[in-house]
Structure formats: C-alpha cells, structure tokens
C-alpha cells in the first residue's frame, strides 16, 4: 500500500509484486523443517498438523476466495480417507496410489455435488452443505459391509512410501510425506489464486450480483473451484488414513467440518496461510489441553469463535498484518 504512487505508473509491476514470493514465506516453509531436528518426539503431531493444514487450505479456496460457506467439508475429507483405506484393504497399499485415488474419488463427489452447490447462497447453501455432509456420514454408517460402520475400517495396511520408506513409529516418514504433499498443493493453490481464475473467484466473493453483468459465468467458476477443493480435501483425508492406518466414521463427523472452519477462521480466511497458521495453533492447543476434560475444550473453542468474530474479523494473520504490513494481499 505504501508504494501506491509508483505502482500506479506501471500496472504490470503492481500485479507482479502481488504474486511475488516474499522472504517471510521462505522463512515460514524453512521453519516447517524444525520438528525434524528439535521436536523429533512430536513428529506424529506435526504430520497431523500438516494434514489439518491441507484440509484447511482446501476450505480456504472455496470459503476465503470464492465466499462459499460450507458446513459439510468433512464429507470430501472422509471420502478421500475411505478410498485410500479401502484400496489398502484390497491389497493396493501404495501411498501415492491411495493419495491419487482419494483425490479422484473426492474430486468426483465434489464435481457431482458442485452442480447443487453452485445454485445456492446464504442459508440454503449452509443447509445444503450440512445436509450433504450428514447424508454421506449416514451412507457410510449404514454401508457397514463396505466401511465397517461404527467399528471403522478393518485391515488397513499401508505399504512403504515409494517402495522404500515404511511408515515408522516416530512419524519421520509420515511428517515428511504430509509436509511434501502440503507444500506441493500449496504451490499449486498459490498459482491458482494469483491467476485470472483466482481473480474471478475473488470477484464472486466480493459481489456475486455484478459477476454476470461483466459476462462472468459464476456457476461454472464455482463448480471448478469446488471440484479442485474437493480433490485437495480428499488428499488430506487419504493422508490421514495412511499415516494413522485407521479410518473411522469420525473422518465424516460434523465436528470435523466445524473444526476445520474454526482453524481457517482463527488463522484468517483468504490468505492461504491462514488455514496453516490456524491448524498449527488449533492442533498444538488441543494436544496441550488433551489432559483436560474434552467438554471444556469445546468451551474454549466456542469462546474463541465468539471473540474472533467480535474482535478479530480477519483472523490472526489479519491482526498481524495490521501490526506490520508484510503483504498487501487480500486488501
């Protein structure tokens, strides 16, 4: 914002500067390697955080950029998890194969449901996403011959990564794997939000009424981003199934949809980094407070939500940006 005057002279330089990698981003990604050296005992947690961050990143693409509120995002996560888990019970335990299959299965579900999603906004959209999420949960619950029902999927066996690195007890492989997937998807998402399509998504968020008046096929854009986000959520689900070797109905719970929303809002929606920062805070806090009564945990989560809405409308990152403008991104 400080360089408005000079940038105005050259629109290309202005747009280029917005998409440029900032030094602090490189520092951030370098810092994600710290657990390998300083907290080797917490690698399992670190891998859970990377998975949650990937899931939140997926929600950020539809909520933070296109303004689509979803209360049923766990459906896509869960389908990815069950796909990877089921494949492994059938003997296809290769992690990358499961990851790809999870992405494809969730992407397909996302594509089919996107035709419904793109038609709605406001309360009806919230109800539709909530209803679809509950519907998928109920299907998985009833189809126990396939999913194991409430007992969870039995016999999940994941092979070694790339045929060489088995998933160890300490979580070295799990964290390395999750982190690489997160980073690759992040780079993809970063390209996406800085592309013409990313601009169109922000247009939908900012003013859905104006979009058709400038010739924009908003429903087609929404279908596209919802399908992409669904595939990413499916990858996150597949990662969870593979790194923990378990799949239970919990992957489809409403609670999971609510949790990922909390993480994203806590970090700040519409930044890409918001979901990651929110996931770190949320997961570390939950780990630290795991000793306390789980009911009390939700008291603090609820209080946090109330406070964020009332006092921190742009999340932690929005707050940091006010203190020290390090990116002029979503302004």
């Amino acid at each position, binding site marked *: 914002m400080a360089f408005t005057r000079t940038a105005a002279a050259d629109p290309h330089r202005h747009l280029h500067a917005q998409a440029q990698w900032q030094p602090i981003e490189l520092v951030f990604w370098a810092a994600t390697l710290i657990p390998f050296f300083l907290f080797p005992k917490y690698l399992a947690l670190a891998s859970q955080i990377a998975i949650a961050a990937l899931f939140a990143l997926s929600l950020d693409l539809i*909520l933070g950029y296109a303004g689509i*509120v979803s*209360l049923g995002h766990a459906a896509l996560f869960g389908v990815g998890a069950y796909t990877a888990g089921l494949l492994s019970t059938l003997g296809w335990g290769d992690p990358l194969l499961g990851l790809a299959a999870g992405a494809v299965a969730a992407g397909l579900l996302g594509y089919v449901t996107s035709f*419904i999603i793109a*038609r*709605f906004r*406001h*309360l*009806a959209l*919230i*109800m*539709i996403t*909530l*209803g*679809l999420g*509950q*519907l998928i949960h*109920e*299907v998985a*619950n*009833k189809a126990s011959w396939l999913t194991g029902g409430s007992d969870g999927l039995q016999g999940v066996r994941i092979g070694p990564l790339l045929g060489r690195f088995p998933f160890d007890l300490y979580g070295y492989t799990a964290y390395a794997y999750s982190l690489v997937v997160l980073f690759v998807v992040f780079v993809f998402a970063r390209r996406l939000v800085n592309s013409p399509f990313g601009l169109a998504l922000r247009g939908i968020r900012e003013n859905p009424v104006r979009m058709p008046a400038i010739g924009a096929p908003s429903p087609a854009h929404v279908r596209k981003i919802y399908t992409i986000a669904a595939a990413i959520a499916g990858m996150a689900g597949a990662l969870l199934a593979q790194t923990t070797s378990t799949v239970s109905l919990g992957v489809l719970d*409403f609670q999971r949809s*609510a949790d990922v*929303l909390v993480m994203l*809002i806590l970090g700040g929606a519409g930044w890409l980094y918001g979901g990651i920062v929110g996931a770190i805070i949320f997961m570390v806090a939950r780990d630290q407070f795991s000793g306390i*009564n789980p*009911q*009390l*945990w*939700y*008291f603090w*989560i*609820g*209080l*946090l*939500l*109330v406070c*964020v*809405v*009332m006092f921190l*409308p742009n999340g932690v990152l929005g707050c940091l940006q006010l203190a020290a403008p390090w990116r002029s991104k979503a302004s």
Partner: protein
Amino acid sequence: MALGPIFGVLFDGFAYGMLLFLLSVGLSVTLGMMNFINLAHCAFAMLGGYVTVTLTNRFGWPFLATLPLAFCIAALVSVVFERLLYRRLYRAGELDQVLLTIGLAFMSVAVAAYVFGTVQQPVETPSFLRGSFSLLGVSVGAYRLFLIAMGLAIMLLLTLMVEYTRFGAQLRAAVDNQRMARGLGINVEGAFIIAFALGSGLAGLGGALAIEIVGLDHSFALAYLIYVLIVVSVGGLGSIGGSFVAASFLGISDMLGKYYLPELGAFLIYLVMIAILIWRPAGLLGRR
C-alpha cells in the same frame, strides 16, 4: 387390524412433529425477519429442558408448573444475548453469524456438561400423563396426546396473534419487507426483540417437553440443531404455517422410516430435505 400399527406410527410421528414445531418456529420467524442465522437456537431449548429438570428434581416442583418458567427463563436469557452480541451482527455476512452462534452452541454444550454432567437427565411427569389409553381401538400414549394438544394450541395462539393483533401486523410487515416496514414507522428492532424472546421461549418450552420423548443431555444443543434447521429451511423462512407443515411432515416421515425402513435410518430425511431445497430453494411455503 393392519390399520392398527400404521395409525399408531402416524400418531407418534405427529406428536414428534409437534415437538419439532415448538423447537423450530421461533428460529423460522427470526430468520425471516432479520435474516439472522442463529445456530444457538437449540441451546435455548436445552436451557428450558434443564430449568424443568432442576425444578422438578431438586426443588420438587410439579412438572407442569415448571413449563412456564422454562419458557420465561429461555426467553429472558435469549434477550440478554440478543442485546449483547447478536444485534451487532445483523448486517454482517452469514459466515460471521454462523461462527458466532455455533461458538455459543459449543459453549452451551460445555457448560451443560460441566454443571449437569454428561448423563441423561430423568424427569418425573404427572401420573395422568404416563401410561396410555385406547382411542378407536388403538393404544395411544397420554404424553404424546398432551404434546399434540400443546402443539395445536400454540399453533392456534400464534396464528391468532399474527393475524389479529397489532404486534402481529407489525411482525408480518417486517418479515414481508423490512425497509418498507421501517418507512411506515414500525419499530422493527423492538418487534424483533419480542419475536426473538417469544421464539426462544417456545424453544425452551419445547426443550422441556422433549425430555420425556427424546431425553436430555448436554449434546442437545447440537444434536437437534440439524432437525430444527431442516424444518426451517423446508418450511420456508418466516412462515409459521410452513414450520408447522414441515415439522409434521418431518416427524411423521422420520417415524415411518424408523418403523418400516430402519436400515435407511436418517438417510431418508436428509435426502428429502436436499430434494425439497433443490426443488424450492425458499422452502415449501417460503416466498423468497
């Protein structure tokens, strides 16, 4: 004789529907007026339930005497929240409203678990509401009959109030076209507070009446939220009649499903809701 079970199921389903009607009608009206998405609505219902449990079990009040208090306390507490928090977000986006109110719902669940524990709360109903009697050759639960009577009475009262009182006229104008209502000098804010209190009170009453049918524990505020939202979105925002129809329909079809197609479970309900919303995004009786 084949009529026996189906009549019984329909009866139970309708009674369940009346319960859902009480729980959801307030949310429908407040959503229609202010477009405010209150996901903490069932927390007020839960509050009503705990008021009744506490008064009967700890202070020995008769069940029926606790019901007005369940109504009043839920209404009063809801107004406090409305003044302190909700009213700041009337012009905010739906996301902020969802986050704030789901946060409140989470907190209510935690507080209930902290104060009352996580066990199901028992409640003692008067003897004439226990047991069952025979109606047209079918065994009918006395409590369910009581529920239906309450539901119909409140539906009647609400309709009379909306159609024939000054407040009702203001309410209809505000739901219909808020800007025009303000232009006509109607105190929309004031009418909204009353409607909000009334709606939350009815939810509190519903919560108290629900204990005997579906039980009461700390998770009530979230567990019944989805049913209430289904009633509201299917019935149409701001429509009392719509809520009544949708709640009856939902209650009966849920009961029929449980009785005849137990393997489908809640699946059917969600499917029907999505189908209705796709068919009529504004709900069955909604105008927008």
